[in-house]
Structure formats: structure tokens, C-alpha cells
């Protein structure tokens, strides 16, 4: 199975209004409640490709149970550790008249030493039934900043390949664990190790630095639809060419999912793995809401993918 870790998930609430008026009653035309979090998005995309996946992390309270039910309903196996405090919520007010998105984001819950110990125990066991594990996203309060490196060590001990997708200190410390694949999350700041990702040359330097710091493979996103992939000896450029991108949220996670699915299949060349990852990201970006739900959708996107060795 492909395991995913989401230590700081959220319940995303998207409220559609017309002409938001502060300090007044506003009618909500459409409300969507969905589970969010990078690792959870990876599991959704893996499931979209028809593969088995197990989602791990921390959940708390009624919101936690809502997330679990949604994931199970999608055919995703769950084994979260339930904490005392409640899972955070992200509310997005989408004003359809002005096109503005206003995000109200709660600070997440605190996890305790005891919670971390219980999570480690679950993680160790689940590694015995996984071939790949993805470690994605931000850390909740109370989590040691080097937790990803720790988890990578445990996974390796049990013969499981690791994929790291985070930002800031957790990413830098995580690299010390020497993951199989590392992709820095550049949504909040488009700098990787001080290099601004605004040109192909800079993306290549950043990717090489990620490899130098411990990853076997590095992926750095250059812009919409363009990625640089680096290994110890090789450099690849990948892009997708399609006009109508609808929704980029989760596309990066879909790329990771595609990589994991293709890697797990063991009969694909490195080029084919990259192609499949890019196709997955594109398939996700073409869908306005939810995730794609058939491998066919991904395979259709393959023809818009262009991969070349540099």
C-alpha cells in the first residue's frame, strides 16, 4: 500500500456568497465541506488512480471523525491517532460576484508527547504493509521539527521508500533523513535554500542542492506546469501543455501521488514515472472540485506531457 502522513490536517469549509457584506447577514448559496491536508490530498489522488492507500496522522474531535468518514467513503484506509484537541478548520469565503477568496485559517491543535509516542507506534506497524510512504505538509504545535527525518529512518528500516514534501525547517531537517524523493513546497515562499525560483537555471540549482543535502531525487516546480527533476547524475525537464487549468489546489500533491503510484508499479522507467506524475498533476488541475477518480483521466493527460533529459 501507499501510506501517507498528514500531521496537521484540516476540515476545509468553502462558502459561496454573492457580494460579501461585512457585519451583515449574508446568504450562502453553496457550502462544501471537505477534508484537507497535503497527505490526505495525496491519498485521494492515489485512490483516484485505483490504488490502495492508507492515511495516517493526527485527528481530533467531531471534525476528525467527519474527515475519517469522508476518507473511508472514498475507499481510503485510515489509521489516524485521535488527539484530545480538535482538528483545525479552514473557512474560505468565495465571493462569486467579485471573484475574491477570503481565507480564515485556524491555528491547529497541540499534540502531546503521548500523542507522538502513539503515532510512532502506529507508523512503525503500518510500514510493514506499505511499499512507499509520503510525508507531507506542516507540523502541528508540539511536534519536534526533525520528526520527518525520524520517520524516514523508521520507514527505511522496514524497507519502505520515502517521499518528503514540506517547506522550511521541517523540510531541511527532513532531508537529513535522506529520503528517496524530496519536493520542496514553495507555495508560501518561492525560495529554496535562498535561491529564488524564477528561472530554469535557478530551479536546476535548487534541485541540485536538494540532492546534495540528502535526497536521491529532487523535484522543484518552476512555474505553472513546469518542473525540474534532479538525481545524482541526471537532470530532467518536464512540462504539461494545456490551456484550461481550472484549479491548482492539490496539483502538487497529485504529482507526488502519481510518482508513488508509478514507482510502486516497478515496471516503469524513470522517464515513464515522471510522465505519469505530470499527467496526474494535470488531471487534478483540470477538475474544479474534488479529485479525478479514474486512471483513464490520468492516462488521457499523458499526451499533454513533455519530458526531456537535459
Amino acid at each position, binding site marked *: 500500500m501507499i501510506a501517507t502522513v498528514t500531521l496537521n490536517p484540516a476540515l476545509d469549509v468553502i462558502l459561496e456568497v454573492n457580494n460579501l457584506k461585512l457585519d451583515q447577514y449574508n446568504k450562502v448559496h453553496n457550502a462544501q465541506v471537505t477534508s484537507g491536508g497535503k497527505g490526505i490530498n495525496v491519498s485521494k489522488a492515489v485512490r483516484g488512480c485505483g490504488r490502495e492507500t492508507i492515511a495516517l496522522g493526527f485527528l481530533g474531535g467531531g471534525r476528525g471523525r467527519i474527515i475519517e468518514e469522508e476518507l473511508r467513503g472514498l475507499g481510503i484506509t*485510515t489509521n489516524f491517532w485521535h488527539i484530545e484537541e480538535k482538528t483545525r478548520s479552514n473557512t474560505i469565503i468565495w465571493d462569486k460576484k467579485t471573484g475574491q477568496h477570503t481565507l480564515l485559517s485556524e491555528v491547529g491543535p497541540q499534540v502531546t508527547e503521548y500523542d507522538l509516542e502513539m503515532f510512532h507506534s502506529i507508523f512503525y506497524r*503500518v510500514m510493514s504493509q506499505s511499499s512507499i510512504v509520503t510525508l507531507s505538509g506542516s507540523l502541528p504545535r508540539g511536534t519536534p521539527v526533525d520528526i520527518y527525518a525520524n520517520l524516514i529512518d523508521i520507514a527505511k528500516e522496514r524497507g519502505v521508500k520515502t517521499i518528503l514534501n514540506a517547506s522550511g525547517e521541517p523540510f531541511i531537517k527532513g532531508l537529513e533523513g535522506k529520503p528517496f524523493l524530496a519536493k520542496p513546497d514553495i507555495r508560501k515562499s518561492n525560495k529554496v535554500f535562498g535561491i529564488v525560483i524564477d528561472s530554469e537555471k535557478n530551479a536546476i540549482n535548487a534541485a541540485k542542492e536538494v540532492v546534495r543535502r540528502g535526497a536521491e531525487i529532487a523535484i522543484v516546480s518552476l512555474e505553472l506546469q513546469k518542473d525540474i527533476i534532479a538525481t545524482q547524475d541526471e537532470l530532467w525537464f518536464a512540462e504539461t501543455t494545456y490551456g484550461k487549468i481550472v484549479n491548482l489546489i492539490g496539483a502538487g500533491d497529485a504529482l507526488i501521488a502519481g510518482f508513488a503510484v508509478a514507482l510502486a508499479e516497478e515496471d516503469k522507467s524513470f522517464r515513464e514515472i515522471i510522465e505519469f506524475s505530470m499527467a496526474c498533476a494535470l488531471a487534478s488541475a483540470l477538475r474544479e472540485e474534488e479529485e479525478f477518480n479514474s486512471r483513464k483521466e490520468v492516462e488521457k493527460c499523458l499526451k499533454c506531457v513533455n519530458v526531456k533529459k537535459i
Partner: protein
Amino acid sequence: MIRDVTSVIADCKLVDLIKILSRHKISGVPVVNHNQEVIGFISQHDVIKATLPNYLGIVSSDSILSEFIQLSKKLKEYSQHPIDEFMRKNVITIDEDDNEVLAADLLIRNKIQRLPVLRKGKLVGIVTLTDICRLLIEKNENSKTQSYSSNFNRT
């Protein structure tokens, strides 16, 4: 099946088990080893039986008031004990490729609430009678030629 693999290991403390059952709102969990292989099952019922020694006696009595203090004392006394002292060791399981006819048979005739589902010997989910009833009641009643069985990994 319910795609949940919430489980405990043999040395999990009783107090931690109660926390898990309470937070997940479930009545029991499979006990697994470090390789996710099912080695037992522990439910609230097993806990009560172990902490209320005169269990069989009071089931047919008028009130448990006199035994209540005993229950409280015993729970506190056993709170740090590993749950393998109280778990059922001869646990019944089903394979993911089996069908709901077999699942219903095992659940009803063994009077159990939750049936662990295995894939290649490892825990991948759980089936309850509620699941099976829901599945059967929602199936198309008009179709006479359809089979009543389907594999769990499709649900």
C-alpha cells in the same frame, strides 16, 4: 467493510485502550503485532468481564450498586496493565476476498460485533453486522440473477 485499521498492540495499557475506544466511539479493536497481524481482540465487554469478577452473578441480579465500587476499584487497579491480560486470543477473522455471506455467518453465529478483515494476513479493515445489513438492504431487490456475494475490497 469499514476501511479502518485502528488497533492496539499487546502491551497497550488498559487506560490507553479506554481512551482509544472513547475517542473513536467504537466498542472494540483488534490486537495486532508489529507486522499488523491480528493476534487477538479486545472489547469493552472483555474489560467489564475482567474487572467485574462476579459478572455472571450480577447479570441476573436486581442491581449492580454493590458491585459498582468493586468495578471502579478494579478498573483503577488494572489501568496500567497490558491489555493482553484481558483480550480474546482465539480471534475470528475474514479475508478481503471472502464474501458477506461468510461474514454474516461468522458474526451472527459467534455473537461478535466486529470482524477483522485481512489481506495477505495483515489487517486492512473491519466488518460489522450493520455494514452487511446496509449492503443487503440497498441492493437491487428486483434483480433475480445477481449473486449475493461480492468481495470486500469493492465496498
